[in-house]
């Protein structure tokens, strides 16, 4: 495992795009963790004397509020900084949830085959046949709006990707000789599935997890934008976008800034994911 990670990092360093992604991700994690120290103001405090202030570097802006304030007089910069906390933890929660459930189902489907496989795969097909955001909306509508329900919804939508990838990989690995050898030396099914086979399916899983991170953030922001995700006064980028929608002409920075934040974080995760895919795929490795 250690060797594997070392080699992975070595391959990854050759890819400039994914290194940029890594740097941005690390920076945003630092920002999220140190939010209380970095944020100049309380993100929920309403400064009634300064509504709709433009950023400080634009005419009419105040040096007190670097990125200006929103329609209720809350500091945008602080809200964006605290928003990174929400977005990153949402992304993380979605990946963990869908990864664990998806991997479990995928391994079982691939390993046992037959009726178990068919049942699991038809259900995932069912989920995949619906547009993911629509399906998420349906789930949130049933569970009720809120950030935790949004996480659940987005995770459910993300599970099929993991199931499919893992199942395909397990079916390949299952027929390898080391599995027969492990079986010979007395390994039970559980051990075969999760200790022998699963680590060998790691490569595509890591890539999918990275891409799932950005999908999770994006989908949760979308739910927030539709008013089904994070609820006021929580500062979440998607919700901020939706709140600022009516001021798009009078104060465009209110829409632009959270949008940019989402774009940058999602993009950097995608860059990292692509880099990981290149680093882990032996076929691509040989070509270069």
């Amino acid at each position, binding site marked *: *495992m250690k*060797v*594997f990670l070392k080699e992975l990092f070595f391959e990854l360093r050759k890819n400039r795009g994914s290194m940029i992604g890594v740097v941005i991700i690390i920076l945003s994690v630092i920002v999220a963790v140190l939010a209380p120290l970095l944020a100049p103001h309380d993100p929920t405090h309403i400064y009634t004397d300064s509504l709709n202030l433009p950023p400080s570097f634009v005419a009419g802006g105040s040096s007190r509020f670097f990125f200006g304030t929103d329609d209720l007089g809350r500091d945008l910069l602080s809200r964006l900084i605290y928003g990174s906390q929400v977005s990153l933890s949402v992304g993380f929660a979605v990946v963990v949830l869908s990864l664990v459930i998806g991997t479990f189902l995928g391994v079982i489907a691939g390993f046992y085959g037959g009726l178990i496989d068919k049942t699991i795969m038809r259900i995932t097909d069912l989920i995949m046949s619906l547009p993911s955001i629509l399906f998420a909306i349906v789930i949130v509508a049933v569970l009720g709006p809120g950030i935790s329900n949004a996480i659940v919804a987005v995770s459910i939508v993300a599970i099929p990707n993991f199931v499919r990838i893992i199942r395909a990989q397990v079916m390949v690995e299952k027929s*390898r*000789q*080391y599995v*027969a*050898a*492990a*079986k*010979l*030396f*007395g390994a*039970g099914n559980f051990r075969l599935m999760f*200790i*022998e086979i699963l*680590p*060998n399916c*790691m490569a595509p899983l890591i890539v999918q997890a990275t891409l799932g991170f950005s999908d999770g953030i994006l989908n949760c922001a979308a739910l927030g934008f539709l008013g089904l995700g994070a609820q006021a006064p929580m500062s979440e980028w998607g919700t901020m976008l939706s709140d600022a929608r009516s001021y798009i002409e009078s104060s465009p920075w209110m829409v632009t800034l959270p949008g940019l934040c989402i774009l940058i974080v999602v993009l950097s995760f995608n860059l990292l994911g692509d880099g990981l895919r290149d680093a882990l795929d032996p076929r691509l490795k040989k070509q270069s």
Partner: protein
Amino acid sequence: MLLSVKNLNIHFKSDRSPSPIHAVRDLSFSLKQGEMLGIVGESGSGKSITNMALLGLLPDSAIVKAQSATFNQHDLLNLKEKEWQKIRGREVSMIFQDPMTALNPFLSVQYQLVETIQTHLKLSKKDSIDKAIELLSLVGIPSPKDRLKAYPFELSGGMAQRVMIAMAISTNPKLLIADEPTTALDVTIQKQILNLIKMLQEKNNMSVILITHDLGVVSEYSERLQVMYAGEIVETGETKELIKHPHHPYTHALLASRPGALVDNQKRIPKTALPSISGIVPAFNQRPIGCQFNPRCEFMTHECQQGHIGLTTEGPKLREYRCIHPLMGSK
């Protein structure tokens, strides 16, 4: 008798053929404690399938039937998966053809070897590690302590096969099945590995089934030899006898097509092309009627195509052959 199999038949269910494929037919053999049995045959002759059946490792599509199959007082025909798990790896073990794929590439030698010892011998972790080091030095791995930390890809093929052997013998099995243990290794290592297996066999009074398609390998190491063709035994006997006087045309042809076959007689490299057996092993759905070898046999007569040929037993040393025109003279 440690292992005794009577009339083993293995069929495979297949989507492509309406009736199940008959992969192994009427196979009977037995093995004494401490004996080494060589099984020789071309690819597809049923050697590996037979041994997978002995380990209960065949896929669900296989139908295994036999008159009887006993190993060390276990009735192999009526074992549940839980009981198989107790026998597999503990009383009967196996070495695989390609050690590089038989070890899990993601787990260290220590993890794979020590876990095996821990589960089977019920030792503490520390004792298991000691035992693992002891085993690794027994199979001739230098600085075994450092090698424990290694991953399979850091080992050479010969090293990995030694680790595999260490794993296989860690539980002192009564029977070791070596399925072409040296095919993936180069010739110098081949000899070392076979000597190691032989040494361990004698040390632990273990029985060994050595599967190979290299007659040179078995002739030196095994006491008894069993030649298989198209899912049947065509000839068995004591290795030396069998190689000196093959009765079945197939065994004869197989021996004649060894690179060294002519060199021995004439003490020089032959100028003629290496003899070969024309044709290929018939596919499962194109098995001939009568003697399985008849399409490729130079002695084939009308009777050879007339229905199943039984085994003829001869002499006190249990020499058996499946042929109606056996080659009886000296070669």
